[in-house]
């Protein structure tokens, strides 16, 4: 363990703490514009976390999505809906219970998990090393993620593209292709 | 044309009739002609089969294997042949009668009525000829469903309510118990075929036998065993031909017939006797007989009283099976015939009274006998047959049942049968008595004019009634042949060649 590694671990925890703080802020924040911003911040922090965890590509995507499209879409929605969350008393017991049960199950599941970051974990010994070892000869590009993404598991990526396309179809089906409003009433202002 | 083809024909004719009826639904005369012709054709197809079966033939045919090991197939044996003959035979008079009745009472949707009627007959014959329990179950359910529209025919709230009760009880029992029993049987025996001597012997743990029997006994709701008898009175909202044929012959007899089949060919009389699995059923049937009779006494509605009478009489047949002796089976089978003859006549009379006089209550019948002498004469004959007095057919079946009780050493049951006969007298005979001997009550509403217009029902109604009443008498004298025939019902497992 070099100082660097400890440093990364600390960065990891700091990022995480910030993430939880942001999540709690989102929970408590009633102004939806602020929520949209906070969710942008959230995904940005997670992008940072991904970088520390060596997932450059994922960080890249998360940054692009979280800061770019996701926020813009959410703002676009807010522009058409409302700014503030209504203050309404809701019983928090059941949701809390559900979450605690799910959380307990998750934690129980982690008890026997292979330790974080160990080299001899099953996932580091079974399929993944093959990818790393074979990519230079099979495909001949340095970015193993791209190789797996587009070739080894290219079909998943095709599915992903179709998902994106499906989202377009879905949104257009609902909001219309021409962009002009189809049915009359909508609060221009409430 | 061989017997197997005939068998198919016997089912196919009534099964295809509905299509013809639907096609000519716009022309009532043509439709009713078709209906009568179909009934005659069916009987014509059944008769040669009867002769063949008497000769010892056992025609069989298997249509299709629904699931691996589960066959849709037919096989004729004496019991089924008997039932088929009764059902198809009595269809002819009923077809005639219903023409008269429906037109007389100006009922609506006569085409639907005729169609459902034909389907019901087809399924009754299907039940009779079923080669295995599975096939029987199918036709059993078809019968239930096809008779539902008949019961609900009037579409009044009461009719709908009655039909609902009818459907609910029959479906509930059949699905909840009979189907489970069927699957259980299949599970342990690997087959549901009807075989002489039963298929469960040696396969079913005797400890479970009473439970399986209970599933069957309650599952066959059409046998109207108490406490699942409520549907039968409820179904009396139906037009009278329906009550006559279906609830005196086809439906209820399908129930008790199934009971007999199960006792004889699934459990086997020997197995039942050996294990005593049916002992409890004997007592239940006995209780059913008595209680239903007592309830019948309290009913003022003519059809309701007849219905409770039916409940009681059906239990005779169940009792015959539960006694687990050969004579019981014979007595039960015989009772199917004799009771059918008697009850159909009674119901037809009730219908005739309704058509002619628009009266349904017993208390309204005072003095009607003089206006409708033929009807009430026939009523008396049939009633006596039901009660079991010679020289009417009912006497014989009761006789054999008593012998069976004696065979089974159930002396109390003999007593029960005696008491029951007395009760029969008590609830049936007052009806013609009132009609013939009491003076008509003053009817303020309709006045004398209305009363004086009452005369005999249409000829088409009257003829079948006479025919049925006559049957009750004729059957008494020809019972020997029937007895011989019934002896051919195989009781013991056939020895393997």
């Amino acid at each position, binding site marked *: 363990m070099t100082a660097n590694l400890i440093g990364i671990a600390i960065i990891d925890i700091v990022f995480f703490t910030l993430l939880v703080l942001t999540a709690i802020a989102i929970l408590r924040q009633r102004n939806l514009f602020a929520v949209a911003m906070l969710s942008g911040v959230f995904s940005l922090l997670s992008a940072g976390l991904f970088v520390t965890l060596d997932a450059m590509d994922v960080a890249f*995507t998360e940054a692009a999505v979280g800061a770019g499209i996701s926020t813009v879409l959410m703002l*676009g929605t807010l522009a058409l809906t409302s700014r503030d969350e209504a203050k309404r008393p809701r019983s928090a017991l059941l949701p809390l219970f559900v979450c605690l049960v799910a959380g307990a199950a998750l934690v129980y599941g982690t008890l026997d998990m292979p330790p974080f970051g160990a080299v001899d974990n099953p996932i580091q010994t079974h399929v993944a090393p093959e990818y790393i070892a074979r990519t230079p000869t099979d*495909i001949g*590009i340095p970015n193993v993620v*791209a190789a797996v*993404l587009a070739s080894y598991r*290219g079909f998943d990526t095709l599915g992903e593209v179709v998902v*994106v396309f499906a989202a377009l179809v879905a*949104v257009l089906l609902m909001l*219309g292709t021409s962009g002009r409003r189809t049915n009359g009433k909508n609060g221009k202002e409430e | 044309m061989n017997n197997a083809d005939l068998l198919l024909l016997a089912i196919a004719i009534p099964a295809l009739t509905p299509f013809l009826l639907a096609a000519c639904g716009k022309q009532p005369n043509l439709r009713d002609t078709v209906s009568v012709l179909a009934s005659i054709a069916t009987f014509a197809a059944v008769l040669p089969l009867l002769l063949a079966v008497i000769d010892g033939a056992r025609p069989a045919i298997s249509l299709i294997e629904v699931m691996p090991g589960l066959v849709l197939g037919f096989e004729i044996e004496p019991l089924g042949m008997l039932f088929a003959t009764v059902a198809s035979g009595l269809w002819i008079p009923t077809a005639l009668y219903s023409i008269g009745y429906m037109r007389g009472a100006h009922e609506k949707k006569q085409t639907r009525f005729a169609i459902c009627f034909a389907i019901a007959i087809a399924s009754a014959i299907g039940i009779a000829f079923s080669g295995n329990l599975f096939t029987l179950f199918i036709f059993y359910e078809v019968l239930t469903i096809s008779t539902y529209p008949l019961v609900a025919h009037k579409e009044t709230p009461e009719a709908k309510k009655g039909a609902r009760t009818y459907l609910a009880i029959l479906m509930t029992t059949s699905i909840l118990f009979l189907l489970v029993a069927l699957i259980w049987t299949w599970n342990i025996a690997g087959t549901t075929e009807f075989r002489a001597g039963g298929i469960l012997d040696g396969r079913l743990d005797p400890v479970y036998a009473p439970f399986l029997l209970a599933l069957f006994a309650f599952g066959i709701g059409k046998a109207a065993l108490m406490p699942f008898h409520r549907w039968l009175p409820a179904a009396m909202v139906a037009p009278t031909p329906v009550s006559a044929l279906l609830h005196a012959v086809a439906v209820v007899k399908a129930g008790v017939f199934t009971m007999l089949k199960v006792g004889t060919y699934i459990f086997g009389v020997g197995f039942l006797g050996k294990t005593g699995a049916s002992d409890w059923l004997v007592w239940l049937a006995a209780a059913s007989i008595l209680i239903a009779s007592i309830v019948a006494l309290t009913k003022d509605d003519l059809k309701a009283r007849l219905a409770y009478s039916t409940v009681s009489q059906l239990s005779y047949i169940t009792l015959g099976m539960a006694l687990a002796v050969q004579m019981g089976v014979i007595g039960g089978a015989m009772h199917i015939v004799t009771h059918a003859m008697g009850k159909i006549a009674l119901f037809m009379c009730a219908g005739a009274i309704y058509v002619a006089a628009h009266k349904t209550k017993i208390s309204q019948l005072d003095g009607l006998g003089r206006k409708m002498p033929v009807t009430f004469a026939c009523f008396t004959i049939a009633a006596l047959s039901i009660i079991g007095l010679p020289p009417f057919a009912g006497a014989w079946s009761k006789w054999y049942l008593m012998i069976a009780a004696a065979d089974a050493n159930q002396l109390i049951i003999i007593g029960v049968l005696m008491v029951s006969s007395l009760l029969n007298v008590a609830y049936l005979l007052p009806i013609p008595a009132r009609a013939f001997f009491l003076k008509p009550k003053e009817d303020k509403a309709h006045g004398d004019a209305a009363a004086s217009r009452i005369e005999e029902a249409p000829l088409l109604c009257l003829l079948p009634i006479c025919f049925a009443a006559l049957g009750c008498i004729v059957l008494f004298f020809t019972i020997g042949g029937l007895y011989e025939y019934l002896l051919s019902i195989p009781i013991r497992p056939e020895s393997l060649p």
Partner: protein
Amino acid sequence: MEHHSILRVVSKLLIPPMLVYALYVQFHGEYSPGGGFQAGVVFAAAFVLYSLVHGIDALTRVAPPRVLHALAGLGVLIFAGTGVVTMALGDAYLGYYALGEHPQHAQEWGIVVVEFGVGMTVATVMLSLFIAFASHTRKLDDKDW
């Protein structure tokens, strides 16, 4: 000169580099982090910036929704079609080895083409989504903010 001229000028300065950057990300996916998806998003972001400053109508003039939708479908078809082509050439679906003699080049070609399809679909879809949301309401006037 409008009150947000600064923004207009800066956006004009920024959009072409953003587009080039997006295309760079698109075509360097094999060498460094990135690829079709990320490129598509950045590409769309550049157009979003354009529409934020110049209004949604200007955007729909530059990139008509109809064309965008067609291109989105086309992107999917490029990806899926690559698979069909390899299939027709006798390899498995998306088996790029069929695309050329040299196995590594064949693979690389396959990846480039496929990633291009991804980028095209993502960019156009993201942009169409933005247009769908943004134009669903009363038009935002250029001066209105």
